[in-house]
Every structure is written in structure tokens, then in C-alpha cells.
């Protein structure tokens, strides 16, 4: 039974957008944790750690997100031995994926701090961890904010792929609405508009932050 597309549908789409934001938030937190570890490993003085994190980043970034979602969705419950819900697996996929990208971004920010700052800390008898915590990271955070906000935009868009494994966020809700109303053009334009409303302010904010940073230098 096909029905008309009306404001109720828009309302339900907006409700589904909450799940988009929720998934983004969780992925960002999980990915942030992974990213911090990856970035620190990359700048550590131990070559095996550096190699491992470089390998991790290149492998994760060299495989499409869709493939990761499916591999985790089907593979993790099997490989883990214990029962893992598919949703947990999908969120793990997003966390790993975001972790690799954030790790790269943050690694760049850590490496942007001049080598002499590390040396000055070492000369004062600070350990690697103390140099990182007291001297390098506080300076790197300032540089890291604009690209991290920019990545948040990527993450919001990437959650659209969760629809493919059945997660009901904005895009999936769009597919369901389309199945009910047979108005694909209208439905998907509205879906796009809602994504735009979520992403565009963040994009602008990231640009503004970058401008302030460039002026401050």
C-alpha cells in the first residue's frame, strides 16, 4: 500500500538522524582511543611499535569501509568464540576504521612539533612518556583540532554505510521510507539535506579553526 510522502516522514527521518549522530559519537570515542595509541606508537623510539602501527594504518585504510563492516559483521562473532552481537561487531569496525584515520591525523600533529622540543625535555631528564605528556601533546592538541573536526564530518557520512548491514540510521530510514512512498527523489533529497544540515556547520567550524590557527602562528 503506497502512501504519500509528507511531513510525518520527514519527522521520522529526523528521528533516525539521532542514530546517525549516536553511531558517530560512539565511533569517534572508540576511534579516538585507538587513534591515540596508534599515534603514540608511531612516534615512539621503538621500531617494532612504529612498524606495527604503520602496518595497521595502511591495511585499514587500504580496504573499503563496506568490506570492513562485512568482515567484522560476519567474522568477529566467529573468531571471538564468544557470542558477539552483529551490532557490536559493526561498531568495532567503525572504531578500528576511525582509529586508523585519527591515528594518521594525530601522528602528523605530533610530528609537527619540532624535534628540539623533545630534546629539551630529554636534556632535562624527562622520560619519553613525560616528554610526550607535558611538552609535546599540549602543543599538538592545538594543531589537531581543525583536522579532527574535519574528520568528524567524514565519520557522519560514513555511518550511512551501516544501512547496508541493516542498522537503522538516516540512510536506512530513507530506504524504508522510499519503499513505503515510492518517491525516491524527494526522499533522498530530504535525506541529503539532513546530512548537509549536520555536516556543513562542522565543515565551516573546522575552516574557521584552521584560519585562526594560521593567523596565530
Amino acid at each position: 500500500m503506497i502512501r504519500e510522502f509528507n511531513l510525518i516522514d520527514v519527522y521520522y527521518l529526523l528521528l533516525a538522524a539521532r542514530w546517525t549522530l549516536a553511531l558517530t559519537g560512539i565511533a569517534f570515542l572508540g576511534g579516538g582511543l585507538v587513534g591515540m595509541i596508534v599515534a603514540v606508537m608511531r612516534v615512539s623510539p621503538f621500531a617494532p611499535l612504529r612498524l606495527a602501527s604503520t602496518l595497521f594504518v595502511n591495511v585499514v585504510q587500504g580496504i573499503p569501509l563496506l568490506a570492513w563492516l562485512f568482515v567484522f559483521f560476519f567474522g568477529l562473532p566467529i573468531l571471538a568464540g564468544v557470542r558477539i552481537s552483529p551490532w557490536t561487531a559493526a561498531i568495532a569496525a567503525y572504531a578500528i576504521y576511525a582509529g586508523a584515520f585519527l591515528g594518521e591525523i594525530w601522528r602528523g600533529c605530533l610530528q609537527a612539533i619540532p624535534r628540539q622540543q623533545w630534546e629539551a625535555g630529554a636534556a632535562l631528564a624527562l622520560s619519553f612518556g613525560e616528554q610526550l605528556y607535558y611538552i609535546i601533546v599540549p602543543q599538538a592538541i592545538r594543531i589537531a583540532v581543525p583536522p579532527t573536526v574535519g574528520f568528524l564530518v567524514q565519520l557522519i557520512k560514513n555511518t550511512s554505510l551501516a544501512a547496508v548491514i541493516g542498522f537503522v540510521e538516516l540512510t536506512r530510514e530513507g530506504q524504508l521510507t522510499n519503499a513505503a512512498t515510492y518517491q525516491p527523489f524527494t526522499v533522498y533529497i530530504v535525506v541529503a539535506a539532513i546530512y548537509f544540515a549536520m555536516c556543513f556547520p562542522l565543515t565551516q567550524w573546522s575552516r574557521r579553526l584552521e584560519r585562526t590557527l594560521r593567523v596565530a602562528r
Partner: protein
Amino acid sequence: MSLVELDGVVKRFGDLTVLDRVDLRIEPREIIAVIGRSGSGKSTMLRCINGLEPIQEGRILFDGITVNDPITDLRKLRQRVGIVFQSYNLFPHLSVERNITLAPRVVKGMKDDAARRLAESALARVGLADKIDAYPDELSGGQQQRVAIARSLAMQPQLMLFDEITSALDPELTGEVLKVLEQVAREGMTMMLVTHEIGFARRVATRLIFMHQGRIWEQGRANEVLESPRTPELATFLEAVLH
């Protein structure tokens, strides 16, 4: 036993030999000035003494501890050897007080009020007591360098290394820094300075070393070495520098 001993030290960067079998003894309370052309290895030699640069052959001893031994705890060593760099390397996100008290608090576990008193006395020694809460970007080059000296002194080292600390300063600012160095020398610190300030070396140094192509080419009392160079390399160098 000398405070610092270098025995047959060889350091290479890839194919380039930067230190070519260097032997050196430093006794307590000595003020050693190291001069030479760029590339002669003087800064590298300095940086090897506190382990910032590894060496390929030879041995470096500080107060009996082998610096280049992999199992040596460099953190403990660096609490006793201070170094001041050409580009000051102050921490821009920390105030002057925090710059000075960071290592005492974090490495030695000093409490905040004791640390602040330490910062105050260190700054008094370099003549910047009123700048204790300022940030590095509010200070001139000479002031920043003096804060860098105070920062190293605050750890109460037995040996202070200075790597061309006035080379990056505008000429009118070097005087204030050199005055601080003289003061520190008067207080009995053992110091090794890589420097271009020949006049300062003549006035303050107890020994002058001229390095050339990675080796100690000439050394002795400052006046003697400068007045009567025994090798043509030193003579040429002095002519170029003292024109």
C-alpha cells in the same frame, strides 16, 4: 678520576665521520671553551657527553658512569649534566616558572611551593626575577636564553654544556647572556662551551680547545693558544674569525 673522560670517541653520520678518535679529560671547576669551524664536530662532541647523540666507537665517562653503555640510565645522568641549546627550546605553552619547575616537579618529585622558590632563586641568578609568570613569546631572545640557562641550573647539575648559545641572538643581546655565564663560572660550576665569542673565551675560560675535522687539534690555556697558534689550521681560523 676526572669528571668527564672521552676515550677514542668516534662518531659517524652515515659515511661521514664527525668525531675522529677524540680523547679528552675535564676536571671539576674547569671552564672549557671549544672553538672551530662549522662541521668540525664541536657541537656533536658536546651532545655526545649527555647522550643526545650515540657514538660508534670509544667510551665516554661521566663521574665514572659510562654514558654510551646501553644499560646506563640516561635520565639519572641528565639530572647531573645540564645543556643549553642555541635555539633556547623553551616550552612555548608553559610560563617561565613552569618551564623551570617542570623537571624538578616531574623528575625529582618536588612540591609546588618549593618548586616556585627554586624558580625564583634560579631567575634571580640570571637577573630575570620579575619575569617569573611571563610566557616565552613575551620575552626577547636574550631573555629567553637566560631563562633556558635558569631552567638547566634549577636541576643543580655538576656539569653545564652550552651549545653556541649566543649565535642565534642579535648582537646587542649577547652581552646580558655572557654576563650570566661569567656569574655561573664564578660560582664554581664546571662548564664546557662551544662558542664563537673569542673575547669571552679569553676572559673566562681556563682551557681553550680548537677542533678541526673531528679531532682536538690544539688545546691549552686560552691566552697561549690564541696568541701563538702552533698549527696553520688554527692560524687560518683565527684570521678568519678575528678580522
